[in-house]
C-alpha cells in the first residue's frame, strides 16, 4: 500500500474503487499503479524486490517526520505515507529525491521503476501489454505492431528536402 502510494505520486491515477486510499485519485485515468508499478518493482529481474519492505518502512518513517514538522495529524488506520494527501506526498517525494538527500538513490530507483512500468510496461511483453490495453502505453499513444508482433512503418517520411545543407559539408556527407 505504501509503495502503491509512492508510485501513484510519481504518475498519478484514478481511484480503483471508492475507498482506495493508496491511489490519491488526482487523475482521470490509470496511473503508475494501474500500469503495474508493483509488478515492476517486485520483479526478480529488477533487483529491487529484496529491499522493498525496508523501503516501505523507511518511507513511512519519513512521512511521520514530515507530518510532525508540518503539524499534520496522521490517520492511524493506514500507513503514514498513505495518510498524507497528494500535495504533501509530492512535497515529501521532492524532498527525498532532491540532489542533496542522502537516500536519494533509493527513492529515485522507486521512481524509475514506476515510470518504466507506466511508459514501457517493462514487467510484461510489450505486445501482450498492448493487447491487454495497458494504460500507460495507451496514454502515450504507442502504436500497434504488425500481426507478427513486429513494428514496421511503411509511411514514414515527408519525402522531400526540408532544409539546405551546411555549406562546409564534405563529399562524404560529414562536417568539414
Amino acid at each position, binding site marked *: 500500500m505504501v509503495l502503491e502510494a509512492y508510485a501513484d505520486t510519481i504518475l498519478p491515477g484514478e481511484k480503483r474503487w471508492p475507498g482506495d486510499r493508496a491511489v490519491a485519485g488526482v487523475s482521470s485515468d490509470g496511473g503508475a499503479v494501474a500500469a503495474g508499478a508493483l509488478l515492476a518493482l517486485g520483479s526478480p529481474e529488477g533487483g529491487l524486490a529484496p529491499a522493498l519492505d525496508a523501503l516501505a518502512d523507511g518511507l513511512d518513517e519519513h512521512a511521520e517526520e514530515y507530518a510532525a514538522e508540518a503539524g499534520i495529524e496522521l490517520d492511524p488506520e493506514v500507513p503514514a505515507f498513505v495518510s498524507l494527501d497528494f500535495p504533501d506526498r509530492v512535497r515529501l517525494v521532492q524532498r527525498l529525491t532532491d540532489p542533496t538527500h542522502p537516500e536519494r538513490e533509493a527513492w529515485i530507483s522507486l521512481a524509475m521503476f514506476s515510470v518504466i512500468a507506466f511508459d514501457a510496461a*517493462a514487467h510484461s511483453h510489450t505486445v501482450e501489454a498492448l493487447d491487454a490495453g495497458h494504460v500507460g502505453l495507451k496514454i502515450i*499513444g504507442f502504436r500497434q505492431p504488425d500481426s507478427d508482433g513486429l513494428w514496421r512503418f511503411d509511411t514514414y517520411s515527408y519525402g522531400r528536402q526540408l532544409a539546405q545543407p551546411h555549406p562546409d*559539408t564534405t563529399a562524404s556527407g*560529414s562536417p568539414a
Partner: protein
Amino acid sequence: MTSSESTDVLVIGSGFGGAITAYHLAAGGARVVVLERGPWLSGEEFEHDFKFGSSSTRVFDFVVGDGMSVLSGNCVGGGSVVYFAAMPRAPRFVFDRKGRFGHRMWPSAISRGTLDPWYDRVAEALPVSQTSWDTVPFSGGLFGAACDHAGRTANPVPVALDQAKCTNCNWMMAGCRFDAKRSLLLNYLPAALAHGAQIRPLHEVQYLSRTDDGGYRVHYTVLDDVDYRVEVDSGTIDAKIVIIAAGAGATPVILQRSEPTLGAMPHAVGRYFSGNGERLNTAIFDEERIRDVLGLSRPDGVPYEAYQIGKGPCVASWDRLDGSLPEYERFSLEQLYFPPGFGTILAQVPDAVGPTWFGAEKKELLRTWQSWLTVFTMSEDDNEGEFGAVPPSGNAVRLSQQMLARGSLRYEPTENTLRGWALSDAEVRDILERDGLSRVMPWTNDVVGAYTVHPLASCRIGDNPATSALDDRHELRNHPGIFVTDGSAVPAGLTVNPAMTIAALAERAVPGIVAAARARGVDVRYGAPAPDGGTSSRDAVLPLARSALRQ
C-alpha cells in the same frame, strides 16, 4: 585451474575497437581470442519488446555514477549493436582542441587530414552512406524544416544503415531485427571468425598480470547468461599482445584493478573522462503550428504525431561547428529518438507549477508523446570525469540482473561545460519555439546526473605523458604490448557522434599493433582488405601502414 590457455593476441571487448583490431590481426595470421562480457545475439534474437530480460536489457548497460550516467552496449558487437548508426566524421577544428591544460590534446600526428584515409576504411567496411531526404523520417523532416524556418542549415546524417531493409521501427537500441543496421555483426566480426578468431561471450575480464616471457595473463570470470550478477566460472589466458577495448566506462577500471599486478598506471588512466558534452532537450510540438508555420503534413493529413516512427537521428544542424568560435561554444544538434522509459523519465514539464519530472503534470505531458521531438546536443565538455574506487568485479556494482548498475565515475561539470550546454539549450529553443511551434525543456540533470551515450577519453592518446595514458600508437605508457583502441582513447569530446572516429582510430592503430606483435615473435602481417573483400581504401593506406610498421 593449473594451466593457462595461450594465444597471440587477446582482445577485450568486441565493439568497434575490438572487432576492427581482431579482424585485421586474425586476417594477418595471428591467433586471436576476443573476450566479450555481454551475450552474443543476432537477427531474430533482437526483440521488439520492452520487457525486462528481452534483448533491450540483455545488450544494454546503464551505469549510474556521481553526476554522470553512462549508457553503452553490452554484447558481442558492443556499441554497434545498440547505437543509432550515425557515422559523421569529426570536424577539423576538433583535432586542434586544447582543453583546460592549454596544449593540443590530440597527438601531433593526428588531424582530420591524416585520419581521413582511415575514416575511408571504415566507410568502405561497414559501409557508411549518406541519407537522402526521401528516407528521412517525419521527426528528422520536422527538425530540418524548423531549422530552415529559423534560418539554419540542416543535414541528413551519414549512417551505417541499409535503407532498403529498414522498417523505421525505431527499435534500434534493442538490436536490429532486420539486419538493416550495419553493425559489426555483419562485417568485421564474421570476417574475423572466418580468419580463425574466437569470440567468447559472457567473459568479463577483471584484471591483467604479467607472464615470465614478457607477455600478459588475462584473468576473467564467466557470467550467467540471464543474471549478470552471478559468476559461473573463471579462467586465464596468456597473450603476447593485449588489446583493451572494453569501452570508456570499463577499460580504465580493468587497468586500475590491474595496478597491484602490473605496477603503476599512467596518471591519465581513469581521468579526463568526457561525456562528449552531451545534453538532451525535448520539444513538445503544437500540431496545428507544424501545419500552419512549416506547411508539413503526413499523407493522412496529420501534421506529425510520429515521434515513434523512424531510425534514431537522421538530421543534424552543424551551424555551430564553426572553428572560428571559441572552444566550448561549438556543438552540433541532432534530432533523436529515445524509447519510453529512458526517453521519458528525464523529460521536464514546461511551465510546471509542481515537480517537473514526475507528478500529475508529467502524466499530462506524456499524453502528447507522439508530438515530442528530442534534440541531442554534442558539445565540448572539459574532460572533468574521474573514476573512483574500483568495484569488486566488472566496471560497476550491478543492481539488476541486467542493465542497471552503480559505478564510480564522478563528473562535476565545469563552467566551460555548463556554458556550452546553456548555449545549446538557447539555440534549441530559438529554433524550435519560434512562432509557437513547440515548448522546449532540457532533460533534468537532478535525477541521475548528466548522461552520455558516448563515453570517451578515460584512457586517452596524446603526446604529453602527464595528461595522456597512451602514446600516439595507442600503446599504454610504461606497459609495452598493451594497446587501448576504444572510445577511451579518444582525447576529448568530438561535437558529433563518435563511432566513426573511434573506428577510424582503431583502423589507424592496427599497423602499429602488428609491428608490436611481430617484435614479440608473432607471424602476422598487415594488409587485409575490407571484410567484404573491397580493396580501394586498403590500397590507399598501405603507404601509411608501411611507415608505422617500420617504427
